[in-house]
């Protein structure tokens, strides 16, 4: 079985739900443009999502057909994206990660300030911090596109765009030009790609 790149997005219910969903969906769509096998979905365990509760969104990218397509959760995430930086205090966000993963955090603080809240940071290969709130402005609060519905707002109109740029910079999982073809706010995507602070740990 080919290696499946698993991406887990931690976000907060309702207020940043759409942004977290956009990160997972846009990564899958951009990788799909490269002709890879992809999948993106919400977590069923977290529903019903209420304001500010921790929720997860998942994406999977593989060069061959994904055999684990009907698994509910990403057991071993390779990339973890945190849409709200305060979640590092509330959750074991790296759960299940094998050594050598990448963490992308939406914060205006330095990587050291985030790392001191992560007890299992030895698992990380690199951490990337991007001030997505500062680059893109406010988050979109919208339910369009959830649970397979039609996405009327569009992918990456808010803080998801700079976060996607940060993921492309820190991991190289997907190409930036493919993300730009998918994401609505292209300027924020490029700015996020440029302004991301990547710190290598091991």
């Amino acid at each position, binding site marked *: 079985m080919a290696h499946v790149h698993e991406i887990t997005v931690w976000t*907060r219910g309702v207020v940043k739900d759409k942004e977290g969903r956009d990160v997972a969906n846009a990564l899958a769509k951009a990788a799909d443009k490269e002709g890879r096998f992809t999948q993106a979905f919400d977590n069923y*365990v*977290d529903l019903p999502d209420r304001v*500010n*509760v*921790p929720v997860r969104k998942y994406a999977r990218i593989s060069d061959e057909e994904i055999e684990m397509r009907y698994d509910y959760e990403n057991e071993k995430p390779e990339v973890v994206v945190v849409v*709200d*930086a*305060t*979640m590092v*205090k*509330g*959750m*074991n966000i790296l*759960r299940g990660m094998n050594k050598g993963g990448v963490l992308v955090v939406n*914060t205006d*603080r330095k990587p050291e*300030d*985030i790392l*001191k*809240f992560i007890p299992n940071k030895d698992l990380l290969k690199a951490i990337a911090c991007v001030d997505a709130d500062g680059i893109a402005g406010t988050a979109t609060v919208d339910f369009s596109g959830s649970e397979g519905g039609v996405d009327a707002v569009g992918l990456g109109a808010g803080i998801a765009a700079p976060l996607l740029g940060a993921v492309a910079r820190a991991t190289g999982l997907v190409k930036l030009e493919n993300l730009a073809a998918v994401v609505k706010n292209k300027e924020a995507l490029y700015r996020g790609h440029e302004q991301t602070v990547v710190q290598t740990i091991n």
Partner: protein
Amino acid sequence: MFDIPKEREVPFAGVTPAPVGEQPMMITGNWRTYRPVIDHEKCNLCMNCVIFCPDACWQLNEAEEEVVWNSKYCKGCLICVNECTTAALTKTYELDFEDGVVRLEKLF
């Protein structure tokens, strides 16, 4: 009516032990992005925060004559900051503090 063996009994859904002071099965401290910080100099013990807090996270400590905040269950709704009459409460970003870490393995 039904003769169910003890080991096959299933607990009723959503049941948590009660009455208890704190409910360890429903910790909501990790919902918080901003926390209320109290300035005891300004506080005149009007008890608005105690009354308005939906999760009873503000309690009066009668011996010390001050209101005490519970970081384990405060979800950062900031209703107390809104209701404070003397502006003794201010909202502060959660990452400014080392404490208040509620790291759950399961979500709920």
